[in-house]
């Protein structure tokens, strides 16, 4: 039966990939519009392709070095390290290295597919929306689903194949580490890229020169649109891929650590959940439709809820007919429900229909300082529902599972994380829709399409912003549960090597680890945001230079050099990744090898706590400031040009790197740190200074 489920998993992965390819070709067959629209789309597509090429080149170099290190380290029988005689098993090292490279490759392929269709769908969605809102929506959403389906398909194929060949979840951990390394580079790099371009384009375009958003006279306008794709399509896709795989692997490791006759059955149960999630997403995507006068946001929300309900029904049938203990059902459902609730409570703090955004907009009339204080305070408050949700999911799934006497409590936590992410196919589809319609609006503007087209594209864009906020809440919370499971997995791997791990706050080593871990997410946030300001400063100089060198640009008689800004943004993003990447991969190892496994356990705990809090704060405060500004622009509190609007613009600019650079990268950071710790736990268990 185990083999059958693995084969079903691989088949479902290929069905998902096949559906993604079919949708891709459907999108490509849509009308790409006028020559001008195609030209604008080509600038964006070329810029995105050039960035991806450079990103993947860097990744290939990083992956080669890390694969080499992994191959060497895991070629030793680590249980014997320090005993005087050590067996050498190169095949294990090579397997781990191959799994690592395969993980990075699968994530890269999913990201590449998502990006490729996104830069084709943007112009087609703009053209389709000139016909009807529904047509534009369909093109954008189906294009987004290519990313969602490709991502879950590649992940399930990769994990199932590796487990089928090796039968060892620790090897799947290598796959997960590969995916996470790419995710970290893609998410942080994409986040730095997109905000560098966005802030520079706005500060010179709107503030200095006074030209509107998406105006083709702005030399940074193409880089800004490229940024939407590299940050929000490739970056967010890689991020969810990473959480999706990591949560599954963590649960598999915890399942494998359980004793009993059903160990294998529960080891692959997370993969079975992923398989059901693929089918639920494939069906759910078909039900996302906008009626004649319907709302795109409601259609996306309906799709998410419908997919979750369908998935829950499938799991109930599976557990009741498959001989699983009921506790895995409750753990899955509590994870799924918590994910949905957290996602939608995020909307409370970031939607202009509720008090936090309206209040922040209202007080903006008194100046930018109070806008910042109010938005920041609501951002801090916004962590409450998510943290409470995580606490409930953790405790309920732990105690229900522990009481079952069949599965362990920590395995239940792992399963609830998988339950939360199993419908990622649908979640990512709705999320990737956002940057596509954002680009569609930009292209409509730059190509001089009719204002009605732009107004309809605005409606689509607005729904995309809400979907994006929900996904962020979902992904951060899922990452929190995932790293809790990985934390348990880390302890399990250490204890499997005969060491007792004691993470007590009475131990100075653990306290040292907790403090160092707690320090890491804020430092990571600072580094990525400083990269944005540094990059934006350089690009501002370039935009000014172009305006000065060719007055025809502002007169509209000559074209700016878009490529120069695209290139600057890419250079800035990629060169800024060195220190953050070290923090994620090198720092936990340094702590582990110097201070020992207990300190590393404390380190992970500290990093998880501040990482989750910072991620929620930054994502929600940034989204709140953005929507407070947009709320004022609808005509509230004086509208455009008022003192409230000026303060709102400042709040939005401050929030930009919060919500699109540092915030969403933090969940990847804590996942990577947890994975690298779990992966190298056997080595750390054998070698540590204290």
């Amino acid at each position, binding site marked *: 039966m185990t083999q059958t489920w693995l084969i079903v998993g691989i088949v479902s992965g290929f069905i998902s990939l096949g559906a993604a390819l079919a949708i891709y070709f459907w999108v490509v067959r849509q009308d790409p519009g006028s020559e001008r629209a195609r030209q604008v789309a080509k600038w964006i597509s070329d810029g995105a392709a050039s960035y991806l090429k450079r990103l993947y080149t860097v990744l290939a170099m990083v992956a080669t070095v890390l694969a080499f290190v992994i191959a060497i380290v895991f070629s030793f029988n680590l249980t014997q390290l320090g005993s005087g005689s050590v067996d050498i098993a190169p095949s294990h090292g090579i397997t781990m290295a191959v799994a690592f490279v395969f993980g990075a490759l699968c994530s890269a392929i999913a990201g590449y597919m998502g990006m490729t269709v996104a830069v084709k769908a943007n112009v087609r969605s703009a053209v389709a929306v000139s016909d009807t809102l529904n047509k534009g929506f369909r093109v954008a959403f189906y294009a987004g689903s290519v990313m969602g389906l490709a991502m879950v398909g590649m992940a399930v194929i990769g994990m199932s194949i590796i487990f089928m060949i090796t039968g060892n979840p620790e090897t799947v951990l290598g796959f997960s580490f590969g995916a996470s390394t790419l995710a970290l580079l893609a998410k942080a790099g994409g986040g730095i890229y997109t905000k560098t371009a966005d802030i520079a384009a706005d500060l010179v375009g709107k503030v200095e*020169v*006074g030209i509107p958003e998406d105006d083709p006279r702005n030399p940074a306008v193409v880089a800004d649109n490229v940024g939407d794709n590299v940050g929000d399509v490739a970056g967010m896709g890689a991020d969810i891929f990473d959480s999706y795989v990591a949560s599954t692997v963590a649960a598999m490791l915890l399942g494998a650590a359980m004793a009993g006759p059903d160990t294998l059955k529960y080891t692959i149960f997370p993969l079975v959940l992923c398989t059901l999630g693929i089918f639920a997403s494939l069906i759910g995507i078909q039900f996302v439709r906008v009626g004649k006068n319907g709302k795109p946001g409601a259609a996306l929300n309906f799709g998410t809820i419908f997919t979750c309900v369908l998935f829950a029904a499938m799991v109930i049938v599976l557990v009741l007919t498959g001989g699983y203990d009921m506790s895995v059902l409750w753990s899955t459902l509590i994870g799924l429900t918590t994910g949905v609730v957290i996602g939608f409570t995020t909307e409370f703090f970031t939607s202009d229909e509720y008090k936090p955004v309206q209040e922040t907009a209202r007080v903006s009339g008194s100046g930018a300082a109070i806008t910042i204080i109010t938005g920041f305070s609501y951002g801090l408050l916004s962590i409450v529902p998510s943290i409470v949700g995580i606490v409930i999911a953790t405790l309920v799934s732990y105690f229900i599972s522990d009481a079952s006497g069949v599965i362990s409590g920590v395995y239940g936590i792992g399963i609830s994380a998988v339950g939360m992410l199993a419908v990622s196919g649908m979640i990512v589809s709705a999320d990737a829709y956002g940057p596509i319609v954002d680009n569609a609006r930009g292209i409509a503007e730059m190509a001089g399409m009719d204002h009605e087209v732009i107004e309809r594209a605005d409606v689509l864009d607005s729904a995309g912003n809400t979907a994006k906020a929900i996904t962020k809440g979902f992904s951060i919370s899922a990452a929190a549960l995932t790293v809790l499971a990985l934390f348990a997995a880390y302890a399990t791997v250490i204890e499997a090597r005969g060491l007792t791990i004691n993470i007590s706050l009475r131990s100075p080593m653990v306290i040292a680890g907790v403090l160092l871990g707690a320090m890491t997410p804020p430092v990571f946030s600072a580094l990525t945001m400083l990269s944005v300001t540094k990059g934006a400063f350089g690009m501002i100089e370039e935009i000014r230079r172009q*305006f*000065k060198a060719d*007055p025809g*640009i502002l007169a509209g008689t000559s074209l700016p050099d878009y490529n120069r800004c695209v290139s600057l943004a890419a250079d800035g993003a990629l060169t800024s990744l060195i220190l953050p990447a070290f923090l994620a991969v090198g720092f936990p190892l340094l702590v582990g090898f110097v201070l020992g496994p207990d300190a590393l356990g404390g380190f992970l705990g500290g990093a998880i706590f501040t990482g989750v809090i910072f991620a929620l704060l930054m994502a929600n405060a940034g989204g709140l400031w953005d929507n407070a500004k947009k709320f004022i622009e609808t005509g509230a509190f004086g509208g455009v040009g008022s003192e409230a609007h000026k303060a709102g613009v400042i709040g939005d600019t401050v929030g930009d790197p919060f919500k699109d650079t540092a915030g969403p990268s933090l969940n990847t950071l804590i996942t990577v740190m947890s994975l690298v710790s779990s992966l190298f736990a056997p080595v750390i268990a054998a070698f540590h200074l204290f």
Partner: protein
Amino acid sequence: MTVHLYLSLIPEALIASMLSPEEFGAYYAVGSEKRSRGQAIFFEIDPKFRSKEFRIEEGIQRCIPHEDGTPKRSIYISVYRVLENIPMNAIKKLYLTTQDGRTLELEPSKRLPLDDAGLHLYREISPVTPLVVSTDGPKAFYELIVKNPTSLIKLPSICFAELRLDGLAKDPKNAEIGDLPYANVEHLRSCLVDLHTKQVMTKMVDRIPSGGIPYRTIKNGIFIGNQEKLIFFALPEEKKLVDKHYQWWRSATM
């Protein structure tokens, strides 16, 4: 190349230029080096207009192309007390240029807008620039400033715009501010309330309003008049601006 005569209101100046109104607007707003930005409001003057107050011929003679053949952008003929010396029949079209150089052309209207009930807010554009509230409609306000022989405050000519007050026109104390972007709204409210409670017909709200004139706040159009007559240039309704002049409207509503 044709030489145009423009009456600029910000600042008040008579200018000869070889640029068309759209080109002149873009040049005037962002400069030849495109290093500056700023709103521009100007009228095109009858090219045959001549006056002993201005050395127009001399200005036109100096308005010749540059050595590389590019048109001469501007020759300032006069920069002081210009408006009062331009007869209304020499004024042709009005051009409203946004801060990034998009220009909208307005024709003179055949009739003045109807005076509606409620209070009014005027932004004087030239020759002085205060923000004023009044119980008078535009025509009465113009007559009060330009034609009232008993008034202590009297101008030989004036150009002004009536700005939107929306609900404040009837209920200055309690009405919602909505999308009106005016600074120091509480002061504006108290000035409007004073018109109800005190024996005054006009009250100055702001001596030096900052930030130009947000075009989206213009209620109905721009007025220009002197002792001889008052001309009104109607601003099209928002829907028409969005439909026919989208680029200008988008830039004007930034």
